[in-house]
């Protein structure tokens, strides 16, 4: 496939936004059960604002993918069958929950709604946080399933696709939360950086697993099944056009195998190895700047990862477009 920068920005930005929200609510949950000191509402408000900003930027990026962005509202219609339609609904729902969560913290209007049997108070922010967490996971699943549900794009048609969207988005979001905590709430920084390190390493495991899986895929469709002629030696002489078409532009990345290998190693380093090292440094020395650097490098690495994700998928229609004459 030809990687589109609109979709690369969309998936990496909203992945980090969701992860950031999950990290914020993790801190609040820890604090509610007395595992962390309670934080000033400013930390949550700034974090939520950043999460909402990331979601909005992702949404803006997604419009660049549409030929007719003025009709985008129609995309919510087919939620019964289309994962893309479901994403279009869940994305604003999650963003709204994150926005209200931030507003509740920022305004200080946060009454206790109920009390758990253990005596833990349940605030409005806790309710919004649970709703946002559910929506964040739903959005990860929608995003991943958009790709995983296409069964003949076999590089994507695996549960690992969804798992990796959760892990990679979570890793970048927790790293960003740790960097924010380094500036605004140093006492929760170690917990966030610790989780960021764990999720980054889990992401490395998940992504490596999918790399190994995809390297062993044998194509199900061949030129023989594509044109229905059972002969071992078939060569395309012409695709019926000379100046290219949508089929030659949309489904080929147009880069060499060496370039692809280079991008693979680049993202393995930039999305996982280097941020993991910087997170460890940030953890041991309480260095906020190391965490900020970790997020920037991890985000760029995840953009390379997403480019590779699209480029690696080999569409069976490419069998029909092999030769110009």
């Amino acid at each position: 496939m030809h990687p589109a920068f609109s979709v690369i920005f969309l998936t990496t930005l909203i992945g980090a936004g969701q992860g950031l929200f999950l990290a914020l609510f993790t801190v609040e949950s820890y604090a509610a059960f007395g595992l962390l000191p309670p934080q000033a509402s400013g930390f949550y408000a700034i974090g939520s604002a950043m999460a909402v900003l990331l979601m909005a930027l992702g949404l803006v990026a997604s419009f660049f993918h549409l030929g007719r962005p003025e009709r985008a509202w129609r995309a919510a219609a087919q939620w019964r069958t289309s994962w893309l339609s479901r994403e279009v609904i869940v994305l604003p729902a999650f963003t709204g929950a994150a926005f209200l969560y931030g507003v509740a913290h920022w305004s200080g209007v946060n009454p206790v709604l109920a009390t758990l049997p253990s005596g833990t108070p349940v605030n409005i922010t806790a309710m919004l946080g649970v709703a946002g967490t559910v929506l964040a996971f739903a959005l990860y699943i929608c995003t991943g399933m958009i790709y995983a549900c296409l069964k003949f794009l076999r590089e994507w048609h695996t549960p690992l696709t969804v798992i990796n969207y959760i892990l990679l988005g979570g890793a970048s979001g927790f790293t960003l939360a740790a960097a924010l905590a380094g500036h605004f709430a140093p006492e929760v920084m170690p917990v966030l950086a610790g989780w960021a390190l764990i999720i980054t390493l889990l992401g490395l495991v998940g992504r490596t697993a999918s790399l190994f899986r995809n390297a062993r895929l044998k194509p199900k469709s061949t030129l023989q099944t594509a044109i229905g002629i059972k002969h071992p030696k078939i060569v395309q002489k012409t695709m019926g056009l000379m100046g290219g078409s949508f089929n030659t532009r949309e489904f080929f990345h147009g880069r060499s195998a060496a370039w692809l290998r280079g991008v693979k190693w680049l993202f393995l380093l930039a999305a996982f190895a280097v941020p993991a090292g910087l997170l460890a440094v940030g953890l041991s020395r309480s260095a906020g700047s190391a965490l900020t650097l970790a997020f920037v490098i991890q985000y760029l690495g995840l953009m390379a990862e997403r480019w590779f994700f699209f480029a690696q998928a080999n569409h069976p229609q490419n069998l029909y477009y092999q030769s110009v004459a």
Partner: protein
Amino acid sequence: MTQLALVIDLNVCVGCHACVTNCKEWNTFGAAGPMVDQNPYGKDPTGTFFNRVQTFEVGEFPNTETVHFPKSCLHCEEPPCVPVCPTGASYKRKEDGIVLVDYDKCIGCKYCSWACPYGAREIDEQQKVMKKCTLCVDRIYDATMTAEERRPACVRACPTSARLFGDIHDPDSEVSQAIREAGGYQLMPEWGTSPANHYLPRRKTKLRIREDELERADNPLKIDQQLPKPGKAEPSLDDVTSW
């Protein structure tokens, strides 16, 4: 239930591209607006087409065959492009099984083209909506045309009658008989899309003529030794008459 489809005979197709040009001609003047080209007279002309003819070489020299392969939307009975569409612009008609795009609802997200294993959909770079073969839905129901004209433009154009059009769910239709009797098959059966369009395979055409078919061994004239006059070796009437 009706399922309209094309049946394309690869044994007959000569790769002349008449179906491609006639398809473009009919549909670019259609109600849905033009099928726009970019750079049509430049170095790399490109544009939207519903139908393409590709050419494959099968076998190893000198034992090769050239196969011309017309390719358009197959109007799958289980179309993977339809459920993924977020707006409902991509749909399959219940009454005749034609898969269509509502150009007024399409947002141009290209997701349906990703979901089609055959590469049958092409985005229109000017209108920014997805386009594909309509089986000439604006022709085949046009009551102002004669029955002969009420067929897809590609079928009308084919000089060798390699393209048949009809209802594959009607067992007595021309297309059903052709599929049944000539071994019609579907493309990429491994994905369970059940394409409605079928292809008829190449066939070896051999004419076997035995000696006794040219000159009957049991010719009664031969048996009673009374051979026709003048004999076979004699000059014929044209040679002996001079008036």
